[in-house]
């Protein structure tokens, strides 16, 4: 079914996909705790991930074990990090996006409905295409969930989190239902309040040059990554559409070739065969661009947001600290509730300093990770583009040689 040497086979967890170095983020593999998604099952409207852990840490009962988790449980874990005050000074690894097969499923359904209006070959071809697309989305969602876990496992503090260990080890259902309407509404308002507050907090100038620079940098960077992500998606969609057109052209050329009684029928058949192969390559180019470029940008969109969130929390703590200072001065002046004001001020000070300290390191690490991830993906992107262009060229040239020899 597959052309020789053209794609990696249909099994979604081929060798290159295994391991925490999976997609975007270049992470240290650490023997003390290794996490990966060893298997995944797509059921009607949910995906079941098999989370596989290898660890030498004493916290776990065994050295190697697996559990089955669903998307909601990943979100629960992520949210528990966000809500944990102790982690306020960290860039919380962004939550993986919800598996979204809706578009793909809709296309498959439309194809089924339109079965009567196309030839059997066309139908089989389109079905294969859509199944490949479904598979690609599936692979992506597995990779994104895996990256989240690997980021947590690589973080010196988060890897020790109790919820994380429960997530990894507890082999029953965690019974974390998705948020209901009321909770979603609460979240929405929380976000509104947070953004408004974020604007106020961001307006406060920081004495620390490092953080002031980071604030400006992240704001601009985040917006530009967002734009680049949108534009790369559009570009890749056009690419896919063009590949689909070439698919149709190949089919029609084949029909023309079989119908034609003149000399030119050989041409039609040969070119049809050629286009069948080149459009598979074109589709692959679009898929690789999606993986190495679009996904990279989307990931850093989420990470830069997480970094912004960290800066917000620090900014919030700074504002609280400054307010506590003012309150202390006032209390001392009035000589009323001084002890209470002192305690509050000390708490705020400690909180602020704790966040600042870890935030600095987190932001430096973010830069290191970002540079490494971009390097890896840009190199792989260029290599794949070259591989595909060379493949295309070879097919085109050998077809041309045959056709020219024929005239």
């Amino acid at each position, binding site marked *: 079914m597959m052309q020789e040497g053209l794609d990696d086979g249909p099994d979604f967890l081929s060798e290159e996909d295994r391991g925490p170095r999976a997609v975007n983020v270049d992470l240290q593999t650490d023997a003390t705790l290794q996490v990966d998604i060893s298997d995944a099952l797509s059921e009607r409207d949910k995906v079941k991930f098999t989370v596989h852990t290898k660890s030498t840490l004493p916290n776990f009962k065994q050295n190697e074990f697996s559990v089955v988790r669903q998307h909601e449980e990943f979100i629960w874990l992520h949210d528990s990090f966000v809500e944990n005050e102790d982690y306020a000074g960290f860039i919380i690894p962004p939550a993986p996006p919800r598996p979204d097969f809706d578009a793909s499923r809709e296309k498959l359904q439309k194809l089924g409905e339109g079965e009567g209006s196309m030839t059997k070959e066309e139908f089989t071809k389109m079905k294969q295409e859509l199944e490949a697309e479904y598979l690609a989305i599936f692979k992506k969602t597995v990779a994104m969930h895996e990256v989240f876990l690997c980021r947590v496992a690589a973080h010196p503090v988060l890897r020790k989190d109790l919820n994380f260990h429960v997530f990894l080890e507890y082999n029953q259902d965690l019974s974390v239902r998705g948020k209901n309407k009321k909770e979603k509404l609460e979240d929405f308002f929380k976000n509104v309040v947070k953004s408004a507050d974020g604007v106020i907090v961001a307006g406060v100038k920081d004495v620390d040059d490092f953080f002031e620079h980071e604030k400006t940098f992240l704001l601009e*960077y985040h917006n530009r990554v967002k734009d*680049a992500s949108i*534009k790369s998606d559009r570009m890749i969609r056009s690419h896919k559409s063009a590949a689909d*057109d070439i698919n149709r052209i190949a089919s029609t050329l084949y029909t023309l070739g079989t119908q034609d009684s003149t000399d030119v029928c050989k041409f039609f058949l040969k*070119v049809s065969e050629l286009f069948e192969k080149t459009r598979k390559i074109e589709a692959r180019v679009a898929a690789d661009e999606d993986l190495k470029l679009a996904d990279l940008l989307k990931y850093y969109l989420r990470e830069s947001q997480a970094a912004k969130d960290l800066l917000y929390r620090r900014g919030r703590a700074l504002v609280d600290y400054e307010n506590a200072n003012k309150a202390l001065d006032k209390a001392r002046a009035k000589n009323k509730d001084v002890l209470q004001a002192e305690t509050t001020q000390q708490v705020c000070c400690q909180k602020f300093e704790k966040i600042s300290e870890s935030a600095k390191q987190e932001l430096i690490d973010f830069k290191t990770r970002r540079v490494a991830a971009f390097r890896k993906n840009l190199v792989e*992107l260029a290599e794949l*583009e*070259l591989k595909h262009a060379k493949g295309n060229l070879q097919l085109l040239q050998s077809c041309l040689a045959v056709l020219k020899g024929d005239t």
Partner: protein
Amino acid sequence: MSYCSSLHASLFPDKQLHVLQDEDTEENGDTFDMQITVSDPEKVGDGMNAYMAYKVTTKTSLNLFSRNEFSVKRRFSDFLGLHSKLASKYMHIGYIVPPAPEKSIVGMTKVKVGKEDLSSAEFVEKRRSALQRYLTRTVTHPALLKDPDVIQFLENTELPRAVSTQALSGAGILRMVNKAAEAVNKMTIKMNESDAWFEEKQQQFENLDIQLRKLHASVESLVCHRKELSVNTASFAKSAAMLGNSEDHTALSRALSQLAEVEEKIDQLHQEQAYADFYLFSELLGDYVRLIAAVKGVFDQRMKTWSKWQDAQLLLQRKREAETKLQYANKPDKLQQAKDEIKEWETKVQQGERDFEQISKNIRQEVGRFEKQRVKDFKVVIIKYLESLVHTQQQLIKYWEAFLPEAKAIA
């Protein structure tokens, strides 16, 4: 734009065009060379009365023409006028007259109104190219080449204005032909096809028509998506450049700027490829969809000729019956008149049969010539198109090979 004009020059190269041998009579067997170019579109006049004048240049060594190289100025309606004359002269005897390019009210209005934008420039270029192909096809036909109207069109400085070209446009002619075809089909007398060749050929052209239309639609879609890809790639390039600017790691920032440059070059590449998709592939298919309509028209003319012959036979039969009746009616003047009429209709029947045989013979010849030309056209275009695809891939390899070390240099 210069890329697509160079494509056109190569579509109908300055090579020898061979006169295809007549099956019955030997032509002088000389190979002749003739090259027609349509160029230099120039807007004449203003407002809604404005029109585009095109320069038609002929280069030839044929004796048919008084000079070896000469140019005239023609407007679109002149081309339509030429086609209508040729169609009315030759279609009914079975010659496949190449159809003129389609009229386009929207396209032309923009040009008249003076919209100096990309889409009007593209429209004029598309039309210029189509007119050139139309003339080249017309003179490739051995009979049409010798037609005085064609010679006059190419040579004469002044040409009488073609009137009411609305009806004379390609679409107008086709409508007339189609109406004739419908009329024939509606007749109760079904043609007894004594020649399986015609039935077979008609079916073949029917199938070809369906597939070519389908292919044309897919290629048009490809052109559209390729243009879209070019636009989106350019947009992404700008975005990547912005991202590179805000990236504070120097080496990564540079690499992203390089990526932006690569993508900008690639967007140009996509645009060029879209032109090739269009001018090589899509336009050829469009031309052949219209040509096949002309072929079908010619087959319908044969049916019309046949039924005229049949009608004449029927009428002759009736006249004979009438004459027989008059034999017993003792009306000597009427009898003589009847005998005269019979002679008249006998001649008509003979003529009808001759016409039918002639048109059948012509069509066989024409279809043979048409198929040879079709094979040649498609082979040439397919090869050129594949070469354009090769060029694109070679450029892509060049660009990505230049980028790869830049990406690896990120430290």
